[in-house]
Structures are given as C-alpha cells and as structure tokens.
C-alpha cells in the first residue's frame, strides 16, 4: 500500500535487501574463531555480494559466502576459485562484530553501531570516495554470536540507509520499456549489456545513463557527471537493483539519492532500476521513476550525520536470525550419519531384510573385557549396536594392548587403568555416539569359597550381576575360566536372555548360543501373572518348533564329545592362545548374535547345522543359525554342532528353581561348597550311570 505524505505525493518506498548467508561462511567463521581469533572479538572486515535481479518473481539476495571472510591459512581446504565472473557479484565492504557470549551479543548497542556505519557512508559521500568507488554506498553491518558447541549461529544484518526527513516522494514509476521510446530502449539495452559484459565495469553497481537527442544511449561512470551536462542529453541515474518488485525500487537507491542530492544538489532525480533476465538487460522488469527530494537542513554539513535505518526484519519481526548447522558441522553427528550410511548400504545393496534398528537397539552386556571382550565390543559397534556394558575386575596389564584391541600403552601406566573403564573410554573415542558403561566387579565363582566377612560383598556382587543381566537384552560370556561362567549362565537362563558364550583353547575355540530358559521351572511364590503367561508362551514356542531345548555351555560340557586333543581343553586358567583365535571367535560370536536377532523364533530358535539336508533354512537372510561352532586353527577347520539341554549345573530347571526359591542361601552354598551343585543336579550320579536318559532333562531331583 503506497503511503502518501502531507502534500499528497506518494512516498518512495524502497524494498530492503534480503540477506543470504551461505553455509560456507559459517564454516569459515568457525574455523577462524577456533584457529586464529580465539577470544579476540575486535570487528572483522567482511565482503558482501549482490547482483542485479535476474528473475521476475524472486529478488536477488545480499550474499555472504566463505570468501567473504579473510582466509585462514591454517585451514586445510581445497576450495576452488569459483569462476563466477565479476558481473554476478558486486563486492561490498562491510564489518562483522562477532561476540564471544550470547550476553555480549544482546548487549551490543545496535543504535550506535548503525550510526557508526552510516557515518562512514556519509563521509564517503562528502569526500567523493563514493563517486570513485560507488560500491561503498551499500556498506553493511553484521552482528553475530557463534555457539561453537551447539553449532548454532545468531546473526543480524543492517544495511544502513541515510534518511531523508521528510521522505522523498516518487512520480511516475513504471517499467523502463514504457518510459523510453523504442529507439532509446534498444540503445539503452545495448549500452547496459556492454557495461555488464566488460570486465572493467561489470561490477560497478552505480552509473549514469546518458541519452542524447538522437536517442543514442551511453553508460558512464559517476565521476563523468560533469561531462554529461548539456547537449540536450537526458541523464538517468542507474543502479543494479536486486529486487524484483514492480512498484518499488531496491535498497541501494536510498544512499544513491543521498549521494546525488549532496554532491550535485539535485532535487528531482530520474533513476533506472536495472534488472536482468538470463544475463541480458530486461527493460520490462527494470523500472524508471522520478524521485522528488526535499533537501533537509544541514544536509551539506559533513558533521551532521543524518539519521539512519536499516536493521533487517526477520519475517516482519524485530528479532535476530538463527541458524543451526549441527547436522553438517558437528563431528559427532557426521560420524553417526556416516556409520549409519555404511550399514544402510549393506541393507540396500545386499540384504533388504536386515533389521538394523533391532540390532542397534539391543542392549548388550559383555562379561569380560579381555581379548574376547574388546573384539566383541568392536564388532558390535560395527553392526550399529550403541548400548554396551563391559564388566571386568582387572586392570590393563603391559601385555594386554597387543592382543586386546581397545587398549593402548597409556592404559597400562601407573598400575594400569581398570579394563572396564578404559574399554568404555576407548569405544567412545572411536565412535562418540556409543552409550557404553563400565562395571568394575569380579564374578563370584563356585568352588572359590569366601570368608564370612566377604560374604556380604559377594552376595552384593551376585545381586548386581542379576540386575545387569535383567536390564540387558543379550549377554556375552567372555571370561577366561569355566567357573566364572557358571553364575552368568544361571542368571541368563533365569531371565531368558540371549546368551552367547565364547571360549578359547590354545588353537581351538567354541562359540555357542545358550538355549532358552527351562520350561518346568516352578515359579516364585511371588511370581507375577506375567511369568505364567510368558511360561505358557515359551511352551507354545517350544512345542511349535517340536524341538528339545538347546543347552548352555555347561550342558555341552557334559554331553559333547570330548576334545580329542585332550591336553588342549578350553578355558584353562592363564590361557595362552594363538593370537588369531580371539578375533575369529569374537567375530563369530557377534555374527551368531545378529543371526539370532533376525530369526523369527529368537532365543527359541532350533539349531541348524551346516550341510544338513534341511537347506530350507537358507531362507533366513543371514543363513543358518547353528547352536555351537567349534573351530581349530590346527586344521583351519570349523564345524557346527548341537548339544541339547541336560541336567547341568547352570541352566536346568532344578538349579533355576532352587535359585529362585532360596536366592542368597543357594548362592552361598553353591559358591562355598564345591560339590553342592553336582549333588543338587545328581550330576555326580549321572556321570557314573550307564543310561543316557537325555529326554528327562527337567527331572525334579530329590534333595
């Protein structure tokens, strides 16, 4: 809506500059701040760019790019010199006030900063510099606060414009093609195109359009004003107009009028808002108008700087702008999206049925942070698992870093860091998005009695382990002794958690998944109804697959064929193993785990053996899901085996029931009395029995 002044003339309203800050500018500013400036907050000279409008519906923006800032030599980048010719960007000097805190940003005296820049323009007008180098008429101001922790940038532009009071009015604003005669229009277009195509003048945004009486037009520098006088010439003041509006000229005209009025004492000014289309002058889009100026008092006085306006509105409001670039600048976020991409590529290109979300959300508990623990953690991380808890009571020893892939020499110094904590730190250094936790604790072991003073703390450890098992979705038993695997196996059976065991000998390994919880374990007296429901579901699942329950590590220990190389049994204390073994076993353990997650029956899945006739099992996207994998480096061989559940000391219903019924007393007995468990399960008898009544897995045994 055009405004009218008192005398009824239409106030000349200018369309403000619209700012555009390329992402590269913020990158360069961050780099400067971090590498060079530090806390130095003195104003920084910057360069802005604009060009004439080239689109009938979209204004050209006042642009800041990475090149707008002084270069930072220590920055490593190979930014090519973009060969945009000068015609597409007129450079404009400006100044940046970047504060160190948000408070300082808010405390900036915007009024006086604007006044200071307006003063510079005013001086340039009076000294004649603006005639020589007219781009200074569009001098600008930028204030900003860069939060380099959150990668967010607050900023506000000001384009100082000297104010006429009373405001200038406009007479007859219309498209240039309607104002010029046809001949004049052709000549003006040609002259403008020449001006725009010459390297010497293409980036000069203010100029004179002189039209002789024979309709021949020439474009001249502002400093040639004197020579354009007389000879019946019409003179228009032309400028590159970034805005596209049909009824309003762009912002650069404001200070241009101030210059014209002040230097050449004109009160009516014919102006040309030069706009283009596809690189050529467009006189339909360009505007010609006549401005009528009432020269204010004191306009010729250098010392009386007129008022200025020019702070940019933000969608019509007087507030700062904010841009958040965390997604493209925060290294952690970049690492996360890159790691995700890798997995997604796997799904897109190879296995569309991969359940990446399921894998990444599974909470994994790793018991043991040694050779197996470190490798399993890394492999899980590669699969996208984010939540890993590592439990280990030991410290990193000097011999560890070469074999245990999360530790370095630093971890061994000063007595050695706790493994669990060092592992967590290392995981986060590799991939910051890991949610890793460490627990420094020893696992209570049967046959390793504790004194009465230590009972309390031992039971506390048991309770803690029970909670850890409950609060995770999958457990990897990666310790180095048989006894230390007992309690975890029991707790996992009790809680029905996916359990993977890996055990190493000198050159052989075992990787297996434990079967589900025993079916007929009687419930606690305090059992919730859910337990009954889940038990029913369990039996349904078992009945469905028509299979026997698969065994745990201890079940196998009894019924599996003995290792033919008898002196190379697994889990000897102070195991010395061929270094290649742990990574192989760890990798298999993780792949087996991922397989389970993809199987529709999960923990209840029946076993599938390689080269069985049941090749329908290859329907599963990741292949077969075995129960046990046993391998030997001696022959470079590997086989898959099955071992069904037995009356073992860890996972059978007898033991689980006892644990549930008697809790602490049961644990104390099991740990303090070496033969208790065997007696409980009748194992001692069983070993001496000839019958192999393997079907009666879940007999109740009379105590």
């Amino acid at each position, binding site marked *: 809506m055009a405004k009218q002044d008192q005398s009824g003339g239409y106030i000349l*309203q200018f369309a403000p500059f619209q700012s555009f800050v390329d992402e590269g500018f913020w*990158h360069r500013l961050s780099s400067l701040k971090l590498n060079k400036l530090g806390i130095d907050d003195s104003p920084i000279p910057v360069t802005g760019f604009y060009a004439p409008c080239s689109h009938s519906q979209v204004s050209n923006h006042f642009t800041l790019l990475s090149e707008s800032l002084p270069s930072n030599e220590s920055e490593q980048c190979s930014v090519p010199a973009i060969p945009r010719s000068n015609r597409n960007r007129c450079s404009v000097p400006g100044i940046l006030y970047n504060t160190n805190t948000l408070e300082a940003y808010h405390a900036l005296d*915007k009024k006086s900063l604007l006044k200071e820049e307006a003063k510079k323009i005013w001086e340039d007008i009076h000294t004649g510099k603006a005639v020589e180098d007219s781009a200074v008429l569009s001098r600008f101001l930028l204030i900003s606060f860069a939060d380099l922790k959150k990668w967010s940038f607050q900023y506000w532009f000001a384009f100082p414009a000297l104010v006429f009071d009373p405001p200038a009015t406009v007479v007859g604003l219309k498209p240039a093609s309607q104002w010029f005669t046809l001949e004049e229009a052709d000549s003006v277009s040609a002259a403008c195109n020449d001006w725009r195509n010459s390297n010497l003048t293409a980036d000069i945004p203010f100029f004179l359009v002189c039209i002789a009486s024979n309709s021949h037009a020439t474009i001249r520098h502002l400093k040639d004003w004197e020579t354009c006088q007389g000879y019946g010439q019409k003179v228009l003041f032309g400028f590159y107009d970034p805005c596209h509006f049909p009824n309003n000229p762009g912002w650069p005209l*404001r200070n241009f009028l101030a210059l014209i009025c002040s230097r050449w004492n004109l009160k009516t000014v014919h102006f040309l808002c030069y706009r283009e289309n596809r690189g050529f002058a467009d006189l339909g889009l360009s505007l010609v108008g006549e401005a009528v100026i009432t020269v204010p008092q004191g306009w010729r006085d250098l010392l009386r700087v007129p008022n200025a306006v020019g702070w940019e509105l933000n*969608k019509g409001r007087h507030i700062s702008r*904010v841009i*958040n670039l965390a*997604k493209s600048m925060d290294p952690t976020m970049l690492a996360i*999206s890159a790691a995700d991409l890798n997995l997604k590529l796997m799904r897109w290109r190879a296995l569309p049925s991969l359940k990446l979300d399921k894998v990444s959300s599974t909470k994994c508990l790793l018991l043991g942070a040694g050779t197996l623990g470190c490798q399993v953690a890394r492999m899980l991380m590669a699969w996208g698992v984010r939540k890993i808890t590592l439990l280990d009571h030991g410290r990193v020893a000097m011999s560890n870093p070469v074999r245990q892939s999360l530790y370095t020499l630093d971890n061994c110094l000063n007595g050695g860091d706790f493994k669990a904590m060092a592992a967590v730190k290392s995981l986060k250094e590799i991939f910051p998005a890991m949610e890793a936790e460490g627990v420094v604790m020893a696992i209570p072991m049967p046959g390793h009695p504790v004194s009465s003073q230590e009972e309390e703390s031992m039971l506390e450890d048991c309770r803690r382990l029970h909670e850890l098992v409950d609060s995770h979705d999958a457990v990897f038993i990666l310790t180095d002794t048989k006894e230390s695997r007992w309690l975890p196996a029991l707790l996992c059976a009790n809680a029905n958690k996916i359990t993977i065991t890996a055990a190493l000998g000198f050159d052989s390994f075992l990787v297996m998944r434990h079967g589900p919880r025993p079916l007929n374990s009687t419930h606690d007296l305090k059992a919730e109804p859910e337990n009954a429901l889940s038990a029913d579901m369990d039996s349904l699942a078992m009945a469905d697959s028509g299979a026997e329950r698969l065994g745990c590590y201890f079940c196998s220990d009894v019924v599996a064929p003995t290792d033919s190389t008898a002196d190379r049994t697994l889990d000897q204390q102070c195991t010395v193993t061929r270094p290649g073994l742990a990574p192989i076993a760890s990798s298999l353990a993780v792949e087996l785990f991922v397989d389970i997650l993809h199987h529709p029956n999960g923990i209840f899945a029946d076993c599938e053996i390689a080269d069985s006739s049941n090749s329908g099992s290859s329907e599963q996207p990741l292949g077969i899901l075995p129960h046990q994998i046993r391998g030997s480096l001696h022959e470079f061989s590997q086989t898959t085996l099955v071992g069904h559940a037995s009356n073992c000391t860890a996972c059978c219903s007898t033991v689980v029931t006892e644990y549930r019924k008697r809790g602490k007393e049961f644990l104390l007995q099991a740990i303090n009395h070496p033969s208790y468990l065997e007696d409980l399960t009748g194992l001692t008898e069983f070993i001496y029995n000839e019958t192999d009544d393997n079907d009666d897995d879940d007999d109740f045994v009379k105590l």
Partner: protein
Amino acid sequence: MDVSCWDGTLSLNEFSRAARTFAEKWKIGNSAFPPWLWVNVPKRPFVASQQVDGFLSLENICLIRPSKVCGAEVSHLEEEETGFSEKEVAIDDATLVLSNHHEMHYYDFHIVYSASYRVPVLYFRGYYSDGCPLQLNEIEKDLPACSAKVLLESKWTFITQEEHPYLNRPWYKLHPCGTSEWMKLLFLGEAALAEKRVAIELYLVSWFSVVGQVIGLRIPIEMMNDRTN
C-alpha cells in the same frame, strides 16, 4: 571401443571431455536454465597426476514453494526474542515492509568424477532463502513425484549424505555404485540403433538423462538426438 566389452565406466580425461560436450549441449538445448559451469580444482600437493581435475556446477536453481508458514520453516528462524525495543531497530516510512512470505528453496548441483567408481556422481544440496540448509526429508518433498518412486524401488539410485570431495562439507549425492551397470545397459540399447562404438563424449548426456529425472531436471530431447557433434 566396442560396447560389448565396455564396463560402463570412464576415465578422468574422458569425463572432462564428456563434461564439455554436456555443458555445450545444455546451453543450446536448455536455455531456460542457467548454464553448467566447469570449476577447476587446484591440484593437491601430494597428487602426482598431470590431469586437469574439476567438476560441473549448476547453482542457485530456485524452487518457489507455495506460501505457507509451516512449523518447521518458522522454527528454524525464530528463536529467542532478543528483547530489543522497537525504537532501537525502527524502520521508517520509506521502508517497504514485505508482507508475503513465499518460501524459496534453492539448489546447487555438482557433477563430480569419482575415481574409485570411475563414474560421474551427482552431488546436490538445498537451502532456504536465508542460507539455512534443507534436510533430506525436506528435499524429498521437492523432488518430482515419480522420482520418489524410483528412489524407493530401484536399488540403483538412492540418496546418501557424504562429504563433498572438494568443499569438505556434507552434501547429498546419488550413490554411484550401480552407475556403471546401467550406463552399460543404456549404451547397449543405443548401440543397437547406431554403430557399435561407444561415443564416450556423450556419456554425461546419457547419464544425466537418467539421473536428471530423479532430481527433476529434465533433459530436452534435442540434446539426446544430436549424435554428430
């Protein structure tokens, strides 16, 4: 080179030649758009190659969105009120207050040679009129409807985010792992009509005829038909 024993890839030199051909044909056939510009890349100090390295660039392509202020767009701009009094930042009568808030999306496209896949790769990014980058879900809304389908169904075209090889900032790209396969098919089809020779300088023209569809940049028929120059 006979098309039947061609693997669908091209060398860096061939890419430079094909880029020149592509840019020329584009200028002639697609005058509605600004031209593609060749950007030279300064040689990195440790690379011994004598070859000229560079990429094609088409920038500031503007997409006008219908004027609606949706939550996402507003929220990226408005944050804390700074509490400045209106007097401090007053505007005067001579300032036009812009009333309509058409949201404008701008796009930059770069065609970059991938040395590991030996094919061209299309990198692109989008941003609002104030420079704030567009996220992938917003970009996908700007893509033509048919391309959304192509992206979902084809295992040969999908958008990933990776660091631009020269600008060191994350850009989106159409992943190149299937490119050599479908380029070979494309040329096989065309070779059936013309000679058996692989006109490598037309590589980019053919390549873009497929890739351009995904991002909504149509390639006019005229560019495809002229096989003489």
